[in-house]
């Protein structure tokens, strides 16, 4: 038996926005460019990461158009190398890694823990400026000869032989690393020291746990890629020999150092999205999340174990068989905490009171697509199989399922879920559902054929392919155009809603987090009185303030406190 969904108490037309909130507290460009308000900084990031999403998307468009025909008449091979490289660099370093943490994390973490701001607001602003400086170097590289080394910058191509603008790109990514590091530092300290009274570790929203785990990776992983790129850059500029075999150096060392960060980096990209899903699912199943402690623990487990698996990117480089075996085994191990999450989300849905709002559509899409992406990762972790599918489109499909089907859907779903809190207004639900479905269909049409292409042997990073692969490439490009529509639609109606959307009120869904107790949009200092937390996370039963009709609802599981 499921409860009837209650009417949303505060989302009735005729409500007005709060008189004073963080958006209108101060005016003028300086009040934005010199702000230390975590909410405004989050919006600054929103604009910047969207910009880089367009840049990365433009390169993706050119790639897919070029691949419509087997002999690729759009660009030369050299230019094609630049297209996929710049697509990767823009998307990974300047969109995926910052997106959820810097936009949603920055906005929500202080609100979720009952604090007035992050621990170090000025460092938060500095993070954004560092991001811009790094981005500028990379854009300079893109526009003065481009970059053709692959986003992986393998040596000695990047450090010796490439004729593209490697040095500014490497400087840009190096600088951008510090933006990540400072964000991670801010989150860790904030979560440790600034929780409101009563907000114990195990009452924290799982979004916060996810960002804590992500911040561990920011702190311990990013410095390694920073120093690695610094050494590669020095090698290129001064003709040193760290990674150049002609001078006694070791290109495999570069790969070890590079992947030591870049593998955990993929967990930076997915953990925050998992945090978003953990917030959306209980809300739209109107049920406490199943297995809170396991989800929290699995986030930390993913962050830790994720540092032990990097050389699965190097199975075909000549690394030792024993190392390969170890890394393969550990890679299987790291899938377990992810599976735990999927089980728990699904169990939360079971006997829940499910509503099909847009954020829920994204969350459900995430679960399915992440499942496919994650399982195909296990295919790649299998040594024998990897010999055949390494560096093919199978890998490309695998990581796009996780990064786009997973992380981007988590990001877009999260934007929708918290849009009322950020702007005070609701987005148009019908259009939003259409966009979500469009995105899902477009995504699968783009990337599922790529699994088949990879299995059939089409290599990645090649500008041409045998004619028998054309039909799948055409399907993929067709899918990409639908996917693009799925991205453009939200951009249009979200911006529209900032002016014309229905006023949302404090808690339109309703959801149980502390952030939903504040005004929409919140005051600059978030809370007029420091809250005192006396309830468990996702406790839909003991919260009469949510206005939910949960009396006599035996199907609702008890709140977390009984785990």
């Amino acid at each position: 038996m499921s409860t009837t969904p209650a009417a949303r108490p505060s989302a009735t037309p005729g409500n007005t926005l709060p008189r004073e909130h963080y958006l209108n507290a101060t005016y003028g460009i300086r009040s934005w460019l010199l702000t230390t308000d975590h909410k405004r900084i989050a919006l600054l990031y929103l604009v910047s990461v969207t910009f880089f999403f367009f840049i990365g998307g433009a390169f993706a468009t050119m790639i897919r158009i070029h691949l419509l025909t087997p002999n690729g008449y759009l660009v030369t091979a050299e230019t094609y190398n630049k297209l996929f490289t710049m697509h990767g660099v823009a998307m990974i370093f300047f969109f995926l890694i910052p997106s959820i943490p810097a936009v949603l994390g920055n906005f929500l973490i202080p609100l979720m823990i009952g604090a007035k701001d992050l621990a170090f607001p000025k460092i938060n602003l500095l993070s954004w400026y560092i991001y811009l400086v790094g981005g500028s170097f990379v854009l300079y590289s893109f526009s003065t000869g481009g970059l053709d080394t692959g986003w992986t910058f393998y040596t000695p191509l990047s450090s010796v032989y490439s004729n593209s603008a490697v040095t500014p790109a490497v400087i840009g990514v190096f600088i951008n690393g510090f933006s990540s590091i400072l964000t991670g530092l801010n989150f860790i300290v904030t979560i440790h020291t600034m929780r409101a009274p009563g907000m114990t570790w195990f009452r924290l929203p799982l979004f916060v746990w996810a960002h804590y785990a992500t911040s561990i990776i920011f702190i311990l992983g990013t410095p390694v890629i920073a120093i690695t790129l610094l050494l590669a850059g020095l090698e290129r500029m001064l003709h040193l020999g760290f990674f150049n075999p002609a001078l006694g150096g070791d290109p495999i060392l570069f790969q070890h150092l590079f992947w030591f960060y870049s593998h955990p980096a993929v967990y930076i990209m997915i953990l925050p999205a998992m945090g978003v899903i953990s917030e959306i699912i209980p809300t739209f199943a109107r049920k406490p999340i199943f297995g809170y402690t396991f989800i929290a623990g699995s986030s930390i487990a993913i962050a830790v174990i994720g540092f032990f698996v990097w050389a699965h990117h190097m199975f075909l480089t000549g690394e030792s068989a024993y190392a390969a075996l170890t890394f393969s085994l550990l890679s299987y191990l790291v899938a377990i905490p992810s599976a735990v999450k999927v089980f728990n989300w699904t169990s939360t849905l079971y006997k829940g009171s499910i509503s099909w709002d847009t954020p829920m559509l994204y969350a459900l899409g995430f679960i399915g697509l992440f499942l496919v992406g994650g399982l195909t990762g296990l295919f790649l972790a299998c040594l024998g199989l990897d010999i055949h599918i390494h560096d093919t489109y199978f890998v490309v499909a695998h990581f796009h399922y996780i990064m786009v089907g997973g992380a981007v859907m988590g990001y877009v779903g999260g934007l929708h879920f918290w849009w009322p809190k950020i702007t005070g207004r609701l987005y148009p639900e019908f259009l939003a559902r259409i966009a979500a479905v469009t995105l899902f269909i477009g995504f699968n049409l783009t990337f599922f054929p790529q699994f088949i292409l990879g299995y059939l042997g089409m290599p990645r990073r090649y500008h041409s392919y045998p004619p028998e692969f054309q039909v799948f490439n055409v399907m993929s490009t067709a899918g990409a155009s639908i996917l693009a529509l799925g991205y453009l639609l939200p951009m249009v109606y979200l911006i529209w809603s900032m002016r014309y959307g229905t006023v949302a009120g404090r808690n339109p869904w309703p959801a149980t987090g502390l952030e939903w107790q504040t005004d929409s949009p919140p005051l600059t200092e978030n809370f007029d009185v420091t809250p005192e937390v006396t309830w468990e996370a996702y406790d839909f039963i003991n919260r009469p303030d949510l206005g939910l009709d949960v009396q006599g609802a035996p199907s609702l599981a008890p709140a977390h406190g009984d785990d």
Partner: protein
Amino acid sequence: MHRTGELFGQFETMEQQRESASLGMWVFLSTEVLFFGGMFMTYTLNRSTYPDVFGEASRSISLTLGAVNTIVLIASSLTMAMSVWASQVGKKQLLTIFLILTLILGSVFLGIKGVEYHEKFVEHHVPGLNFSFEPGASVATNAHAQLFFSLYFAMTGLHALHMIVGAGLLIWLIGQSLKGRFTPEYSTPVDLIGLYWHFVDIVWIFLFPLLYLIDRH
């Protein structure tokens, strides 16, 4: 701009502010461990691949200057720790004196480093600047020795850069200390910059044996 010693708006209590600042500095230092760590990794692999040339190259840098620098830097850690103590017990003049001593010792370290670098420059041991390990060295030996010196300059150079930043911080700290800004209730900048300074000392504690003491027998 907040004056030192006031409660920042995002914090509820001075205690929370202090705890946050301290944790923040320790987390930052952990990033530095991994940052330098990447170079220690590069060093480890290259030394294990070319042990003999690395030993030879190590012998060509001055053990005396390296050892003296080690003593100087550890002494500066002592004076830095003493300045933290002085701030905790409210001895403002001693605080300033110890900070100045730390700065002097740090500058001595950098001066000696400059002398060492100059020596290497004169001997053509600077990669990228007419590098030549020794007359008659084979191409391979030259290349492998250049690897040692690339690491030598990269690692001690990054370390020296951190020392220079530390010196700048000390100058600021001395200025604040002369204005009497630090009391037993509030000495957070002294504590934090102290942590940073000790960390830079620890990096050198590892650099010294790894670069100077490879094969001295």
